């Protein structure tokens, strides 16, 4: 039988402490605790600091927030925090889904142009149908999802060769499509006759700034997030099967085409949520699933909850840093993630070099 030396060698990334079910639950617990802690800390940080002790007044009698603090916390800081958490979570899960779909760890909603499609779709909504609106979103949200679906379908058709997407083809197709989409958005900007709101929204989207949503808007986004996460769950097991290749997966009874369409729709829905809340934020959907994969291994079923939590933490931390390092000015968080994510992306590309230059 196989040599014992061979058996000892264990390069599986899934061999760590978090591999077994108890360890996995522990990891989810840690991530949830970190997210809660992150929200608390982020709520304290800002131009007007709110001490942690005062925050306890929300839950406990004996401490209380001043009127100003309450106003800042509930109408500015918390909506911003929740927007960052939700944008990070949706981007990361969309990245995870797209990586499974493309069978390629370099797929990211920004890199493959799905974020750009959502921006363009939503811009159409803002500039051409501004009166159609529901809870502040309406046509914009719908067109955002539609834009993301169209762009990713286009990239998929351009980049896939027999159900595989070679790195080069994916990157080139994604680059071309997202460049066209960004400049289309600029074109819309020029066409805009009603200077003001639309332009401001578009500019912040293109830079990747976390928005300052109202509570009803947040509720709509949260509902879309939950629908997206819920719909992702049955897809994760299918992405594991799809990793064996299209033909083999079909032989095993997987409905390949249905699975693909479902992944595109759900991933686009999640991308649209992220874009509505934070615009074009690059590389989050790349970094977070990759880190989780290093800890948990490639099983998409286990990755989904961990990625959703870690994505929220990641973007919350990034946004809190972005809005406080040069206070009172603010750095768009998209700038920060590009600074962190760009080198990381190049590192991953280098890892895939053999495939790229083969």
């Amino acid at each position: 039988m196989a040599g014992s030396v061979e058996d000892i060698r264990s390069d599986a990334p899934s061999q760590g402490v978090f591999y077994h079910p108890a360890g996995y639950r522990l990891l989810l617990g840690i991530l949830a605790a970190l997210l809660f802690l992150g929200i608390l800390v982020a709520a304290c940080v800002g131009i007007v600091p709110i001490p942690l002790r005062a925050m306890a007044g929300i839950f406990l009698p004996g401490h209380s927030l001043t009127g100003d603090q309450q106003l800042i916390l509930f109408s500015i800081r918390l909506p911003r925090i929740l927007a960052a958490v939700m944008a990070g979570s949706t981007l990361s899960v969309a990245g995870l889904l797209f990586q499974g779909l493309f069978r390629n760890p370099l797929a990211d909603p920004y890199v493959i142009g799905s974020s750009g499609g959502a921006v363009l779709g939503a811009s159409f909504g803002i500039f051409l149908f501004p009166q159609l609106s529901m809870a502040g979103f309406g046509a914009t949200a719908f067109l955002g999802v539609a834009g993301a679906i169209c762009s990713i379908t286009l990239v998929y058709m351009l980049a896939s060769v027999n159900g595989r997407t070679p790195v080069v083809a994916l990157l080139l197709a994604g680059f071309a499509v997202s460049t066209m989409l960004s400049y289309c958005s600029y074109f819309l900007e020029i066409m805009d006759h009603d200077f003001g709101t639309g332009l401001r929204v578009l500019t912040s989207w293109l830079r990747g700034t976390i928005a300052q949503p109202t509570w009803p808007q947040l509720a709509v986004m949260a509902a879309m997030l939950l629908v997206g996460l819920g719909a992702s769950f049955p897809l994760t097991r299918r992405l594991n099967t799809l990793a064996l290749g299209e033909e083999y997966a079909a032989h095993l009874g997987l409905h390949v085409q249905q699975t693909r369409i479902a992944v595109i729709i759900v991933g686009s829905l999640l991308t649209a949520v992220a874009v509505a809340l934070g615009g074009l934020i690059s590389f989050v959907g790349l970094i977070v699933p990759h880190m989780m994969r290093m800890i948990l291994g490639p099983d998409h079923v286990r990755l989904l909850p961990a990625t959703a939590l870690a994505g929220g933490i990641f973007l919350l931390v990034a946004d809190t840093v972005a809005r406080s390092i040069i206070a009172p000015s603010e750095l768009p968080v998209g700038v920060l993630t590009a600074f962190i994510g760009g080198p990381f992306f190049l590192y991953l590309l280098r890892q895939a070099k053999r495939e790229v230059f083969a």
Partner: protein
Amino acid sequence: MSALLRFNHLGFGYPHRTIFTDLDATISKAACIALVGPNGSGKTTLLRLAAGTLKPDHGEVCLRGESIDTLSHRNIARSIALVPQNVEVSFPFTVQQFVEQGRTPYLKMFGGMSGADRDAVEHAMVLTDTIAFRNRVFNQLSGGERQRVKIALGLAQQPSLLLLDEPTQHLDIGRQLELVDLIKRLHRHGIAILASMHELTLIEDTFSSVWLLDPDEEMLQGTPSEMLRPELLGRVFDCPPHSGPVLLKPRSKHPERVRV
């Protein structure tokens, strides 16, 4: 001998190239068949037709009397497991996670693996002797290990018929014998086998019959000693008979024909 799978007047061709015109063949429940033929003669095509991943141009493939066309992939995959030649897995899945994919045809729409599913995976890994490296990454296995793990995935489907596409390809002689032993063991467990083989020397002791794909004529069927004759192989493979040890080896039980 009841028929498990039947090819009924099967015709299939690719654009500009006909592979089968009128193929008739039966795989019984206790069959152990080697599929032999030159490159491009349609071995893989035949396996795909048998698994229902390719549709014939005319004629039909019947599984236990039912046309395979009327069955879903899910249904077929519970009876027929196809082990492909090359599998590229896009992420570093472990051997166990890989083998678990064999349970796909049994999982419910929204469900995960049940106890019965886990037992089937465990059993498949025990049968193929792959349990020792269940936690290793599939993509990092050696050729022989990888072949056994692929077969384990097929066995996790709990099939009645196992289709193997060149299971001994790229294996050293020791691993080839190991694999042939595994095929014998699976056959003893009551699984019918159809395997495409290039290593003609391994056939006689393992398989009970041979299907010989002749590029110019319809497929020939017979026992190994009927099919693996140097003259016949020389014609089918388009090389001089007795030109190499491989063409002589199958007749080694009849030493008078062996030339030194």
